C-alpha cells in the first residue's frame, strides 16, 4: 500500500516496470539460457555440493548469485542507475567448526564492477565470480573467513525441470519459473579456512532459475532438496508452504541412473519433518531432518550438522537454513545433497 501511494506520488517521473510473464512451452535453448535474463524480476545460479579434503573431512559448500530487477525505472541516464541488482551468498559447512562460515555481497550492476552476461553463465560481483567456460564452471571468491576456488566439470546435459524447463510453483497459471539443474558436477579446487589453502574435490549441483512470479501470494516459503543418488541418479523435490506451514504446491523430478527422467505431480511429493532444531542466535526453528517422498520412494534426510543457518539480512534481507544433508534409505546412505528451508523466520519476499 505504501509503495502504491509512493508510486502514485511520483508517477510522472518513475516508470513502473512490467516484467515478462513465465509461459509454458517456451522451451530452453543453450548456451543462451545459461546467461542472465535481465528483463525478469529475479534469477539465481545456485551452486551447492559436498567436498572432501585430502584427509577425507567432509565439507558442504554453497555459492549463490541472485539477480533482481527492481520494480521501478526512470529516465535517469546515469551509468549507476540501479536497474539490476546482484546479491551473492557463500557458505562453508564444516562439522569441525560447528556452524556455517558465510559471507554476502550486494551491488548494483554498474561500471563493470558487478554484472551478469546474457550470453552464457558469467556473473560477478567485485572479486566474487561464477562462470561457465567450455564445459566447465569456475567459481572463485574470498569471503570474510574463508576462500574458495573450484572448477566444476559438467559431463551431463542440463536437466530440465518441470515441462521442458517450465516449472510450476503455484496453482495459478504464470506462478512458475524457468528452471534447469546441472547435477553431478565433478568438483576440484582449493579451500582456505584461515589456515592455508588445501586441495578439495567432490561433487556439486547447480540450479539456474528465473522468474517474474515465483511465489503465489499465499506462499510464505519453500523447502527444496537436491540429492545426488549413490546409484548415479538425482532427485529434486520442492514444496511451497503457505502461511500455516501446510504444502501449497509441490513438484519434483527423479533422474534415473540410466538417464530416465520422471516428473512428479504435486500430490506425489511429500515433506515430513522428523526433527526440529532451534537456532540459538535467532530463535528460529527449522525441520533439519525430513522424510521426503517422491512417488513410491522415500528418503530420510539427515543434516551434516544441525547449525547451517544463514543470516542474509545484509544482502537478500532474510534468514534461512541451507545445508548439506545425507539421504538415507533403510538406514543406509543412498545419496548426498543440499536441503534449503526458507520462510521459517518471516515470509520470504522476493
Amino acid at each position, binding site marked *: 500500500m505504501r509503495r502504491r501511494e509512493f508510486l502514485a506520488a511520483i508517477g510522472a517521473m518513475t516508470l513502473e516496470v512490467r516484467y515478462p510473464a513465465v509461459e509454458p512451452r517456451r522451451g530452453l535453448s543453450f548456451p543462451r539460457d545459461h546467461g542472465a535474463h535481465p528483463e525478469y524480476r529475479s534469477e539465481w545460479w545456485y551452486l551447492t555440493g559436498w567436498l572432501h579434503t585430502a584427509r577425507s573431512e567432509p565439507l558442504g559448500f554453497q555459492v549463490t548469485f541472485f539477480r533482481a530487477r527492481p520494480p521501478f525505472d526512470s529516465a*535517469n541516464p546515469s551509468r549507476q542507475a540501479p536497474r539490476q541488482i546482484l546479491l551473492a551468498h557463500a557458505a562453508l559447512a564444516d562439522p569441525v567448526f560447528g556452524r556455517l562460515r558465510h559471507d554476502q555481497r550486494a551491488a*548494483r550492476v554498474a561500471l563493470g564492477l558487478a554484472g551478469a552476461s546474457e550470453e552464457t553463465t558469467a556473473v560477478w560481483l567485485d572479486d566474487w565470480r561464477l562462470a561457465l567456460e567450455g564445459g566447465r564452471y569456475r567459481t572463485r571468491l574470498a569471503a570474510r573467513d574463508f576462500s574458495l576456488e573450484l572448477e566444476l566439470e559438467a559431463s551431463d546435459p542440463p536437466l530440465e525441470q518441470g515441462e521442458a524447463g517450465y516449472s510450476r510453483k503455484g496453482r495459478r497459471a504464470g506462478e512458475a519459473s524457468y528452471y534447469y539443474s546441472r547435477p553431478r558436477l565433478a568438483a576440484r579446487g582449493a579451500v582456505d579456512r584461515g589456515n592455508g589453502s588445501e586441495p578439495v574435490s567432490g561433487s556439486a549441483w547447480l540450479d539456474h532459475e528465473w522468474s517474474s512470479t515465483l511465489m503465489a501470494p499465499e506462499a510464505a516459503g519453500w523447502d527444496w532438496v537436491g540429492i545426488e543418488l549413490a546409484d548415479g541418479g538425482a532427485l529434486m523435490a520442492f514444496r511451497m508452504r503457505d502461511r500455516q506451514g501446510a504444502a501449497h504446491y509441490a513438484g519434483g523430478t527423479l533422474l534415473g541412473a540410466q538417464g530416465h527422467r520422471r516428473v512428479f505431480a504435486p500430490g506425489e511429493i511429500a515433506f515430513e519433518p522428523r526433527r526440529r532444531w532451534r537456532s540459538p542466535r535467532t530463535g528460529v526453528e527449522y525441520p533439519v531432518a525430513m522424510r521426503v517422498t517422491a512417488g513410491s520412494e522415500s528418503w530420510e534426510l539427515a543434516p551434516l550438522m544441525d547449525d547451517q543457518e544463514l543470516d542474509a539480512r545484509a544482502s537478500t*534481507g532474510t534468514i534461512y537454513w541451507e545445508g548439506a544433508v545425507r539421504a538415507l534409505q533403510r538406514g543406509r546412505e543412498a545419496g548426498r545433497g543440499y536441503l534449503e528451508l526458507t520462510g521459517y523466520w518471516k515470509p520470504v519476499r522476493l
Partner: protein
Amino acid sequence: MWRLAIVLNARFAHQWGRTALSIAGIALGVALGFAVSLINRAAVEELGAGVRSLAGEADLVVRGGRSGFDEALYVQLAKFDGVAAASPVLEAEAGLAAGERTIRLVGIDALRAARMQPALFADDPARRIELLRPDVVFLSAAASDRLALGAGEKLRIVAGLDIVELEIAGVLPASALRGAAALTDVATAQWRLDRIGQLNRVDLRLAPGVDREAMRTRIALLLPAGTLVSTVEMAEDSGAALSRAYRVNLNVLALVALLTGGFLVFSAQALEVTRRRGEHALLRVLGLERRGVTRLVLVEAAAIGVLGSATGLALGYALAGAALRFAGADLGAGMFRGVAPALSFPAGSAIAYLAAGVAIAAGGALLPALDAARTAPAQALKAGDEQRLFARATGLRPGAALLAAGAVLAQFGPLDGIPLFGYLSIACLLVGGILLMPWLSQAALARLPLTARVPYALALAQLRAAPGQAMVSLAAIVASFSLMVAMAIMVASLRSSVEQWLDAVLPADLYVRTTHAGETAWLEPELEVRVKALPQVQRAEFLRSGRITLDARRPPIALMARDLTREGTALVFPLVGARHQRRRDDPPPAWVSEAVADLYGYAPGERIALPVGGRNHPFVVAGVWRDYLRQHGAIVLERALYVELTGDRRSNDATLWLAPGASVADTMQALRALPGGELLEMAAPGEIRDISLRLFDRTFAVTYALEAVAVLVGLFGLSSSVAAIVLSRRREFGMLRHLGMTRAQINSMLAAEGGLLALLGVAAGLVLGALISLVLVYVVNRQSFNWGMELHLPYGLLAGLSLLLIGLALLTAYVSGREATGMAPVRAVKEDW
C-alpha cells in the same frame, strides 16, 4: 570548615557588598569561559561526529572538492590492490527552493554504503532497497526537525535554475546519521544535480593488515590534481579548523573576564587587608604566626573563588544552553551549517574552570596576603599606617621590561594557526603598563602645581604622599579602560575597512545571481548571452565559483573564474601590497586573497600550480587582494582561461553595468522575463552593502557582548574601590572637620582626588589601549582570520568613553564622600575599626 565559616560569616556580615562584587566578577569570568568551552565542545564534537558518522568504518576517504572527478576513478579505486571495499558518494550543499537555507544532499550507493556505514541501515535493512528508488531521499533526524518536513512530503532543491522535487521516503533515527543531511541514491544525485558520470567522494575500507599510510601514499599517485586522499581524522581536523581561530578568540575574551574578576578580588582584598590591619595585628599579638595571617587572607579569597566559580559554572551552563538554542553553535557567525549540537556537562572541563576561578581569586589576594603578614604588629596597631601596599613596587624596570617584551612578542608569527604570541604580547603590555603606573603617576603628580585652593591642594598632597590605596583604583581604571579602548579601535578599524572594501568590490549598477545558498545552482551559458543582449545592459561580467582543496588538513579555498578586462581588475579587487608586473614567459595570472597569501605563503611573482579541471596548471601570482568574505581564502582566475581548461561554461553570478538612461527597476523586470529568470536573485549595490554590514555586525554580536561584560566588570571594580577608599578615611575627614573644613570642602577634595585619579588612568589607558589595539589589528586578527585592515580611530567614541569614566569616578567619590562625612566629626575621629 568551621574556621572558614566563621571567617566568611564575619566578612559577609560587614562587607557583603564588596564581597558579592568579587564573587560576581569571578562568576562572570568562569561563566563566560565555561559557556564558550561548552558551546565549542558541543559544536566541534557534533561536527566531528557528523564527519565520522558519514565516513562510518572507512579507513581512507578520497575527496574531489566541489567539481569532483570522473566515476572511472571509483572503479579504479574499487579494484585497487589492498582495497577491501569502496563506496561512491556524490554530495553537495544543495540550496532549498524558497529561502536561503541549504541541506547537505548526499548521494550514496546504499548497497555499497551498507558495508561502510552499517549504522545507516541498522534499524531497517530494507532501507537499502528503498533508497534505490529514483528521486527519493531519507532525511536525517536533525534535518527533518530543522526543515519541519517528514515522510511523504517533498524536498524541493535548486539545481541550476530549476527546482527538483524529491520525495521524502523516510526519516533516519538520530543514531543513524548525525547532523542535517538528506540521503539519496548516487544515480539520482548525478542526474538531478546534472553531474552525470561524476562523483566527489569515495570511501575506502582497506583489506586487513594493509598499512594505511602506505596505502594513502600509493593511492595519492592515482588521483587527478585537486583530488586528495585523507584519513577520517584529517577530515575532522579540517572541520575543526573552520572555526578554531574564532573559538580561541572567544576563549581569550573569557579569560580577560576571568582576569578582571581576579583583579576585583585583588582590589577587594587589598582594601580588606588595609581595613583590618589592626585586627590582623591583634591576631598576631595573640599568637597567630605570619603564615597564619597569609593563610587567613588566602582562605577568604579562595572561598570567594569557590563561591564565584560554582555560581559561574551554573550560569555558564545556562548561558550555553540559551546560546545554542537561540543563536546556534556558531553564535551567529555562520560557521557550523548543518550541525545540530547537543549540550553535555563535561566534568573535567568544569573542574578545570572551577580550579581556574579559585586560583585566580587566590592569586589576586596573594599580594595583599603577603603584605598583611609582613607588617609588624606593633606598627600596625598604631593608626595611620595604611600606605604600604605599593611602596615596594614603584620601580621603573619591571614595567618597562614587560612593555619591551610585549613589543618583541608581537613580531612572531602564529603557532599552529593561533596567534598565541599576539595574546602573550597583549598580556605583557597590559601588566607592564599597570606596573608602570605608580612611577608614572608620581612623576605626573609631582609636576602638577599646588594651588591656593584648599580642597584641590589637599587632594594632590594626599595622592602624592599616600599613593598606596590610590594605586589599586588606578590599576583598575587602566586595566579596564585600556582593554575597552583597544577593542573599540580594533572593531572600528575592521568595520570601516569592511565598509571601504564593500565600496571597492561593488562598483557596478546591478548584481545578479542564482540562489547563493548551497552549491547546486548555476546559470547556463544561454542565459548569459540573453543577459548581454538586453538593451538595458551596457556591460556584463560573469563569474563562476567553485572550490578547490590544496591541503587536506585545511578547509577548501574558493576558486573564482571572472570575466576580466585589464582596467577592470583593479576595480573589482581591492589589491593590496606589491603587484607583479607580467613578464613575457609568465604563465597565466592568478590573484590570491590575503588569506591564501598568509596560509599558503604565496607572494606576488611566485609561480604556483593550481588544480583546475582535474589537472595541475601553472599560474603566476599577479597580486594579493583583500577579501573579508571567504576566511579560508579565495583565488581569482580569468574566466576565458578557466573555460578553456575545464570546458565549464556555466556561471553563478553576474555583475551588470547599465546603459545610460536605463533604470535598475526596468532592467530587473527585463531579467525576470528571461527563461529561468524568475529564480534569479538581484540586488543593487546599496542593498548588498547593507546586508553585508548587517551580517558583519551579527558575526561580531557575541564578541561585542563579551567585551561589554568585561568592561562593565571593570567599571564596577573602579567605583567600588573608590568608594572603599573614601569610606576607609572617615577618621581623617573627622579630623579635617575639626580643623575647620566644611563638609562641602571635603566633598570637593574627594571629587578632586577621584577626578585626578580617573584623569591619570584615562590618559594612561588611552595610550596603553592604542598600543594593544595595534597588536589586535596587525597581529591577532591578521593571524586568526587573515584579514588585513586599516587602522581607524573612533575619536568620538573614545572621547565619550573617557568622559564617562571620569564622570563615574567623580560621581562615586562624591556620593561616597557625602556618606562618609555624614556622621558627626567626633564620632568619626573616635571610631575604631
